[in-house]
């Protein structure tokens, strides 16, 4: 009798415990929900500004107007030898054909204009508006006109002004061998400032410039800028540089380089490119990027996490990974090698150092939380010098190395010194000078930190 009573009491007791426990777990999940309900308001406040900023950059146009300018001085003839059966087309002819057809028939181009750039008898630039078929026949069967020189700054200015009036992106194709009036050789000295003056409208209008350099076999008469010892040389298949300049609004230039030009050469230079903000986050709970030392996100559920608490120990530096989405940057800036060479990590109140830069691999792309980031930067913080501050990952505006190697002070003998253009670095200096007063960084991703208690 007593035992049965004991048993029944025990059962009711167990039941009670089970009920209390299950109640407890419900309570916990309810607590969780209220947490997540409270936090997002704070997060969205933080997240809102970068998102809106990026959408402005993100809002890449689906179509752009394009004006294509082909310089047709005598120096360009060698790139476009007239076609004969059994003779291979030059790289220039192949690439330009593709480009022309992409501009003419591609889905990313709205209004298009084709221009032949030359000079008149008084060395003034002339832009001849021509049809697609006309410009194509120039590419495939050669230049019939006799155009002596290329007044480079004046030509750039005329082309730019024309495109600005028509709200179009300029694509300018030339060998960029400056050929001023023979009576005015002093222009060589002031080439950088002349280029700057000619393009100042681009800077005023907030336009960016992409320079793409390639080489092509050259058949025919080569006119060097330096006229001694040879005034001209006949070349038979030597590689000579030619350049494609794209000038327009940053996102339009991006569209043209990525969707219209497509296969870009290795030599790329970008001027006036700037990103107000790139999406980024400190990745502290991802299994793929485990942090080291005492570091945690200041807000428990923040996504993206842009503020961290950390406390480096004497023998235990803090190390963590930042995920960045750099997919909107120009192609060459997205290469891991480029980023490794140029990315800077600076701190305010801390002494951070860059550990490594990696691009997203397939397994990361398959992870939903990580798929939105294209690059991962590991940062080490060995010590703090203040209780709060910031850690910035920055990409400085740098002039690419190839510009120096592609530039020469004497282009008289391209056989001995191939792939070089007369004073090209001076031309690039002029372009660089345009944007001198802009931000020093292509982008700047700043994480706030406070010392952990």
């Amino acid at each position, binding site marked *: 009798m007593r035992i049965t009573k*004991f048993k029944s009491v025990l059962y009711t007791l167990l039941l009670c415990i089970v009920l209390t426990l299950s109640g407890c777990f419900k309570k*916990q*999940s309810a607590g969780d929900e209220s947490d997540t309900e409270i936090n997002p308001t704070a997060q969205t406040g933080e997240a809102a500004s970068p998102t809106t900023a990026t959408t402005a950059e993100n809002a890449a146009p689906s179509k752009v107007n394009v004006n294509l300018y082909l310089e047709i001085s005598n120096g360009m003839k060698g790139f476009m030898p007239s076609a004969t059966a059994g003779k291979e087309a030059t790289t220039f002819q192949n690439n330009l054909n593709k480009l022309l057809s992409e501009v003419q028939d591609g889905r990313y181009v709205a209004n298009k204009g084709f221009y032949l750039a030359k000079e008149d008898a008084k060395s003034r630039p002339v832009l001849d508006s021509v049809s697609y078929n006309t410009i194509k026949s120039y590419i495939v069967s050669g230049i019939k006109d006799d155009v002596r020189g290329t007044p480079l700054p004046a030509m750039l200015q005329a082309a730019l002004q024309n495109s600005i009036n028509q709200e179009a992106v300029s694509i300018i194709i030339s060998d960029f061998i400056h050929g001023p009036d023979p009576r005015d050789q002093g222009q060589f000295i002031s080439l950088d400032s002349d280029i700057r003056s000619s393009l100042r409208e681009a800077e005023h209008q907030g336009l960016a410039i992409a320079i793409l350099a390639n080489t092509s076999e050259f058949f025919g008469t080569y006119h060097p800028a330096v006229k001694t010892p040879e005034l001209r040389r006949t070349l038979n298949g030597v590689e000579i540089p030619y350049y494609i300049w794209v000038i327009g609004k940053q996102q339009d230039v991006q569209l043209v380089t990525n969707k219209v030009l497509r296969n870009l050469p290795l030599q790329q230079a970008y001027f006036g490119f700037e990103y107000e903000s790139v999406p980024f986050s400190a990745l502290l*709970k991802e299994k793929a990027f485990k*942090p080291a030392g*005492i570091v945690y996100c200041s807000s428990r559920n923040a996504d993206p996490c842009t503020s961290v608490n950390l406390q480096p120990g004497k023998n235990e530096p803090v190390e963590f990974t930042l995920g960045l989405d750099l997919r909107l940057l120009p192609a060459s800036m997205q290469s891991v090698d480029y980023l490794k060479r140029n990315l800077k990590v600076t701190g305010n109140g801390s002494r951070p150092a860059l550990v490594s830069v990696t691009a997203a691999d397939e397994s990361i792309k398959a992870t939903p939380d990580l798929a939105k980031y294209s690059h991962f930067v590991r940062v080490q913080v060995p010590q703090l010098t203040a209780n709060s501050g910031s850690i910035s990952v920055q990409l400085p505006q740098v002039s690419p190395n190839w510009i120096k190697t592609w530039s020469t002070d004497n282009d008289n003998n391209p056989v001995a010194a191939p792939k070089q253009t007369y004073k090209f670095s001076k031309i690039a200096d002029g372009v660089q000078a345009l944007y001198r007063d802009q931000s020093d960084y292509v982008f700047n991703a700043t994480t706030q930190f406070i010392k*952990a208690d």
Partner: protein
Amino acid sequence: MIQQFFSGLYEFVLGRPMPANFTNDYREVVFPNTGLMLFIISLAMVLVYYYVLNRMMSTGLYKPRHWVIFLVLNAIIAFIIPIAQVNGNEIETHSYTYMFAFVNVVYSLILFFVFSLLLKRGSVQAWTTPMKWPNKK
């Protein structure tokens, strides 16, 4: 406030949460939840033992060994809850997790004992369980 109290209670013994990247999860969720449940469940167990079983129902479970059974039961619950909390919040398991569970068990023993001392005088059959002190009659 409550968060800080419970974080302080556990971190006083355990040190800062490990792995450190889950510090906020421990401080904002796991510590307060576990601590609150520890208080509530311990109190409930004591109330059930002294007032339900040994006053309203008169079950005869007034011997010290019955009290010990409840003490152990409470300790087991106190061991399970922290681990469930850590797993439920998708926190990486670490030796810290089990140290935390162990510390919670110790706290549960202390709390159960303290609540017993405070509340046993209201019981009819078990007012001397586990011992007579401090009640006098």
